Every structure is written in structure tokens, then in C-alpha cells.
């Protein structure tokens, strides 16, 4: 089990305890059994996600800890719904891996597809997301063509559709490849993107064949960002943020 997942598990269990109105450290240890690890709790405390009482026997989520756990629970319960309603499968085992690997956008998309369900198959409440509050009806794809980025926005390349091997090699030679971070600088008269420290001009046809991950919009500022990075992402903070006010 990796570090992020261990932390997530602790936070999820704290959310369950909050729902049940419990707050004892011993209770947490009891439900988590061998997965319980006090080092992680101390680490979470130092990051101000949880608050321990003086005697270290009571534990509670802080405001930011609550926000973070809400995302996890939401993803987990939506996954259960998805497996249960749409696939009719065993929702328990599949869903518990799910919340550790998805982006908030993907969670929102699933929520929209399922019609903003309010409760999981167990009957527990699914925390609302932005999409529920706006009661969105259309899901957004999490991969978009480069041409749909805003000017000044950065994104990570997901994949590139190419017409020929030669074109692929040429684009690859410029370091434009899956995983690279590109910043769109200009859309008109030609597209100009920055990639690996150099500027590249291209026509609309190529730009629309480069597909990037949509940036997690409500996690762009501050702390949450680095924590919500999924596996492959670069951990250096700020590389994934909007450039503000640079609309040229």
C-alpha cells in the first residue's frame, strides 16, 4: 500500500466516524485494525488536516481535512453507485481502489452521468460536488484538444493523434509528447505553445490533434493541488496552475 493511499484511508475512516458522531482515537484504531498507523495521524496533524486533543485520545477533522475527505468519500460512493447501477457488479471491491486514482473532474463527470445521486448503495449520503450545486446536465470530457485551452493556461499532454509516423516523429522531436506540460501562449494568427523551455508555432490542424488533460479547476490554488495529484503527475507545485491575467 502506498503512502497516499494509507493517508487517504485514515481520512476516510475519520469521515465515517464524523458521520456517526464519534471522535476517539481508540475507536479509529478499532475499525482500521492493522492498517492503523499513529505516524500517519501525526503527519496529518502537522499538515493541519486533523486536530488531536491534548491527551491524544480525541481526534477530529479540521476544515481543510474535511474538504479533502469529502472528495474521497464522494468519489468512493459514486464509484459504488456506478458499479451497482450501471454495471450491476460487485461494488465493494472495485470501488475501494477508485477514489485514490481519479481526478475531481472525472468524479464530476460520473456524477453527472448518473444524474447526481444523493446516496450510495448502502444508503449513506454522497457529498455534493460543484456539478450537483449547478445541477449540470452534460459531462465534460477530461481530455480536451489543445485548441480548447485558454491563452496562458498550462496542461499536460495526454496523447497525440497523428496522421503519419513522420508527423509523429517530428512532433516528438520537439519534446511534445504524452506527459509533457504545454502552455498555450497564442491562438491567433497561429497557435504558439511553450514546451520544455522553447516556443513552438503550429497550425490549427496539429493543435487540435494534441490532446491534453483538462486542468482540475477547483484545485488550482494553494495546498490541495499537490495532494490531489494523480500518479504520473509532476509534484513540483505551481507548474500546473493558471497563469493569471495574461490574456494576450
Amino acid at each position, binding site marked *: 500500500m502506498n503512502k497516499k493511499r494509507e493517508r487517504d484511508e485514515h481520512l476516510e475512516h475519520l469521515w465515517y466516524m464524523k458521520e456517526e458522531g464519534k471522535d476517539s482515537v481508540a475507536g479509529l484504531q478499532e475499525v482500521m485494525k492493522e492498517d492503523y498507523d499513529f505516524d500517519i495521524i501525526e503527519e496529518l496533524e502537522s499538515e493541519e488536516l486533523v486536530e488531536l486533543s491534548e491527551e491524544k485520545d480525541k481526534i477530529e477533522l479540521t476544515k481543510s481535512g474535511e474538504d479533502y475527505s469529502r472528495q474521497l468519500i464522494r468519489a468512493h460512493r459514486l464509484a459504488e453507485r456506478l458499479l451497482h447501477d450501471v454495471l450491476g457488479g460487485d461494488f465493494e471491491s472495485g470501488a475501494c481502489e477508485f477514489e485514490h486514482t481519479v481526478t475531481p473532474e472525472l468524479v464530476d463527470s460520473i456524477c453527472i452521468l448518473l444524474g447526481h445521486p444523493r446516496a450510495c448503495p448502502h444508503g449513506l449520503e454522497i457529498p455534493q460536488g460543484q456539478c450537483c450545486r449547478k445541477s449540470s446536465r452534460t459531462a465534460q470530457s477530461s481530455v480536451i484538444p489543445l485548441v480548447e485551452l485558454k491563452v496562458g493556461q498550462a496542461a499536460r499532454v495526454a496523447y497525440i493523434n497523428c496522421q503519419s509516423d513522420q*508527423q509523429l516523429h*517530428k512532433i516528438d*522531436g520537439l519534446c511534445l509528447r504524452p506527459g509533457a506540460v504545454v502552455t498555450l501562449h*497564442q491562438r491567433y*494568427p497561429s497557435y504558439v505553445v511553450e514546451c*520544455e523551455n*522553447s516556443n513552438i*508555432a*503550429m*497550425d490549427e490542424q496539429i493543435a487540435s490533434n494534441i490532446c491534453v488533460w483538462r486542468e482540475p479547476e477547483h484545485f488550482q490554488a494553494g495546498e490541495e493541488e499537490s495532494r490531489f495529484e494523480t500518479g504520473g503527475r509532476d509534484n513540483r507545485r505551481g507548474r500546473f496552475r493558471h497563469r493569471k491575467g495574461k490574456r494576450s
Partner: protein
Amino acid sequence: MSSKKTESERKKGSGGAAARKIAILGLPNTGKSQIFNNLTGEYTLVANYPLTTVEMKRGVCRIEGESYEVIDTPGLHCLYIHSEEELIVREMIFSEKPDIIIQCIDANQLKQSLALTADLLETDIAMVISLNSIDETAKRGVRIDSEGLSRLLGVEVVESAAVNNSGIKELKSAIAKAGSGKPAVEYDEIIESGVAAIESELGEDVSFKRKAAILLLLEDPFLGDYLTEVCGREKVARLRQRVSEVRRGFRGNIGQAVNKRRNQWIEDLAEKTIRRQTKDAGEFSESFGRLSRHPVFGLPILAFFLVTTFFLVVYAAGFIESVLGGILVEPTVEFVRGHLPSGFWNEFIVGHYGILTMGLFNAIVTVLPILSVFFVMYGFLEDIGYIPNLCVLVGRFFERIGLTGKAIMPLVLAFGCKTMATLVTKGLRSRKEKFITIYLIAFAIPCSAQLAIDMGILGKAGFTAFLIAYGTLGVVEICAGFVLNKVIKGDEKSDFIQELPAIRVPNAKAILVKTYYRLYWFLKEAVPIFIIAAAALFFVDRTGLLDLTKHVLEPVVVGWLGLPIDIVDALILSLARHEAAAALLLNMADSGAMNFVQVIVAVVITTMFVPCFANIVAMCKELGVKTGIAMALTINISSFILAGILNWILIFTIGRWFL
């Protein structure tokens, strides 16, 4: 290939050991030509943009008493080839087997260059890496651990700021002790065994077997031709079969698997050797670059450069010209007239078509000042890296006239030299696009020398004249694009993706050196032509042929174009060299022999009229002799028709104010 071999053997036989070969390779715009110049002490044009070098150039350099043959090459991204201009470079590597490779890497773009490094390491040739513009990298807050890089690759890495000639001593000593590096990328077992199997079947004569085997496995589209030449058709067929067996044995896409390993290797190296701090410095040049390709601010910047150049050419060059005229031309003419009796020799030397008056003085008094001022300005724009940004400005516009992206760079380069731009069209794969591009390059675009002198001529009539003449040329060019796009069949679309160089602070010394060489080449190439053309005109005039030609052409020139009949001299001269014709026009405008409308029409027709001889040769080379000559003729006819139309439009619109 075999002929190459015998050639080198012959060299060995005649003059002791043959010089070892150094090939300078690297991505476009990484300073290869600069390194070449620094090593050999020769000069090839360098600029801050890709495609400056179109053909191989060879020179000699001596290091520690041993002499080497140095080869400068056009840009190369990797050994898996995607365009014809890159193919020549790979063919050179495979057929000439250089002893040492210098890979030029722009330190700002280390990561982009590493794919080529991986390829070159696979050839097992001794190698040195020259890390160029390291000074700029430092300014941008990026630090590169070159010692670490050298350790990881197993080859010498030399830091240099090529423009200032620094690091060249280190480079030379690195060359003297260069060795081949560590094998770079190791592929999946199944691929490795496939490579080994193919390798063992390659004949003795094939160079760089491992690399060749990998390229074969990736189904490189061009390698087959080389192999057929080396080991025959049958062998290649057997190899192909072998390759498809290996490919079938592999689940998934081999190309992707290979690329993945390679990218991992690159990421890993970059991670270990590049340290990035803040990126504050270079903010100015970055924002200037951004402004210069901005749809709104870009145009004023372009206009600013054009207008500045215009006024510099008109006034600064005009001043130099008048000074030179006073101290050189008048005394000489006086002297000759005073000492030679009037008659044949007097006329031949200082007469209307005299070899001094029309030949030498036109070249050095009229044309040289204009070119020197213009080349300083143009060199400045090249050096800061402004020109490729124009590609962005005009990009979408070109699409409208049926040209797609790849044609943009050649057309922009045509403002420098049309011959070179024509050769650059090698990169265009669609025949239709290539045809249109070459046509447009030859047609209404002035090359730098022409543009400079046009500015000089139009300057006599004022800035409005410049606007009208160049506006017309622009409209003509666009219409030509439209028409050709409609007339010619075939609609294969090609794509445009172009790296933009970083805007950098200009280097005064580099600009002056470049201007010096350009002027030197002009004097060396053009002055004899000026003189010969003047002499030729003189004799044609003597025999009465000139008058006859003028008589025949009079209805067209005077009637249709509305120009003075002496313009025929200029048209004939432009067959030899455009500057010679332009110089004549300049004198005519100067002496008041032409009015406002005539100046404009004259400039427009000489700009469009027959492209220079070198350009026609390049056209024939790219399109075939028949098409090339047919195109040149079409251009001539249309230039007469269009200039006449312009003449009549001008007469009926603004003519009444000036005539």
C-alpha cells in the same frame, strides 16, 4: 557509395594519410555553422533561426598538428528520417562514415537534443558534444551539469558560447581525445534479440549495423534505398522478410515501445543534469517575442522595422553615396575625360554604358552603400531571432490562399535570398504546394538586395510611392496564390509546426562580421558581372542591336508600361543580376528621368521580372528543367501584363496630380 570510397582511397594514395573527418551535427538552429566557422576560420552564414544552412559545407581545420576535414550540415532531429533535407545528412553519415561527430546542442533545449544523442551513440562513432549558448542558459536560471552529462554519456562535453568564440580551445582538445560513448538505450529483450538477428544478416559493407538494424525494424522509409545500393535487391528482400517476422513476433507497436525506452532514457538524463531555478531573467526578450507575433501588436512592430529600414536606407545610404560620388566618381571621370581623347575608349570607360560609370561605380557607389546599411539592419533582425516570428503572424493568412504551414518558412526566407528559399522547399512533400511556393518565391517577393535598392529608388519619390509599390506587389502575390491554388490540381494538405528561436540580445560583432562577409561576397560575385554586363550593353549598343531591340519593344515599354525607353537597359541588366538593373533605375530616378508613376511601375516590374540566374537554376533543380524554365517565362509575361495594368490604374487615379 563506391565512388566515394575510391575517392578517399585516391586521396590516401596521393598525399599521405587522408584527413580524418569531423561531421558537425545537431538540431536546427543550434549553432553548427558557428562552430564550423570557429573551427575552420572560414565563414558561412549564421543566423538565429532554423534552415540557415541548406547544403553541406566542407572546410579544413588543424588540431595539434593533425588536419581534419570538417563538414557542416543542415539540421537533423534524429536518424529516423522524416524529411528529405534530413535524408542528405543521414546519407552523408552512412556513406562517408565520419571519424568524429560534434553534436551541437543548444543548452536551453538540452532535452530536445537528447533523442539525436541517443541515435548517434548507437552508431558507435567517436563523439564530442558542444553545449552552445551556455551563457544564455545561465541567464535564464537553468544550470546544466556538463560534467555529469559527460560521465553519463561517456563522451566529452564542452561548454561554449559559440558566438563569442569561447570554448573553442576546449573543443579542439576534446576532439583530439574524442572516443565513442556508452551504448545509450537498451530496449526490451524481444526487441534486442530481433535487432541482433537482423544485425547478423546485414552484410559486411553496411555501416553502423546496430543502428541500421534498429532503423530497419522501425521500417524507416528511406533506408531501403541505401541498403539496396550496398548489398543488392535480393538481400534487402530477405531482410524485409526478417523484419516482418520480428515485428509479427512482437505484441503491440514496436515504434512506441522503442520510443518509450528512449524517452525514459532522456527523462532520466535530463532529471540528473538539468537544474532549474527561477526563470525571471529573459523576461524582456520573452515578452518582446510574444509581442512581435501578437495579432495586434505584431503588425506595428513589423511596420516599425520596415519603416526604420526604409528611412535608414534612403537617408544614411543616400548620404554615403553622395560623399563617395564627390570624392571618387567625379574626379575619376574628370581625369579620364581629360586624358583620353573622345571616341571609342573614352565611351567604353566613362560613357553612357562605360565599364566604370555603369559597371564599377554603379556597384560600389550606388549599390554598396545601400546594401551595407540594409544588411546591418537585416543582420540585426536575424541575430535577435525576429524573422521566424513572422511565420506566426502570416500563418493563418497563408492558409486562406491555399498554402499550408510548411510553405511559410520558405516564403519568409525568400526575403533574404530567393535562391536559398527555393532550395528550402525540398521539405515540402506535396508537389502542388512545392510548385506554388517556388512560383511565389520567384514572383513578387523582393530578395534582400532588391528590397534594399527598391527602398533607395522609391525613397526618391517618397514614402507613399513605397507603400503603393509594395502594396501592389503584396496584392499581386496574394492573387497569384489564389489563382495557382484554383488552377493546379491535388489537395494534399501538409502541416505546419515550427520551433521559434528565443529572442536574444543582438551581438554587435557578429552582425558586423556577417555584414562584412555579405558585402565581400557581393563585391566578389557581383562587381565582375556589373562590369561585364556594362561592356556587353556597350557593344550591343555599338552594333545597333540595342536600338533595334528598343525600337521593337517601344510599343510595350512606352505605350503599355508608360516607361522611358531606356528602361530596356535595366531589363536586360536584370537578366544578369537584379542589383545591376536596380542601380540603373536608381540613377534614372535620381536624374529626374522618371516621374512618380513611372518610378513605381519600374520598381514593380523589375521586382517581378525574371528572377536572377541562380534562382532559375535552383528552380530547375527542384522542379526539373522544363518546368523551371516554363515557370520563369510565365513569370516574365505576367510581370509585363500586371505592371501595365498598374500603370494604367495609376494614371487614371492619382496620375492627374503628378502628370
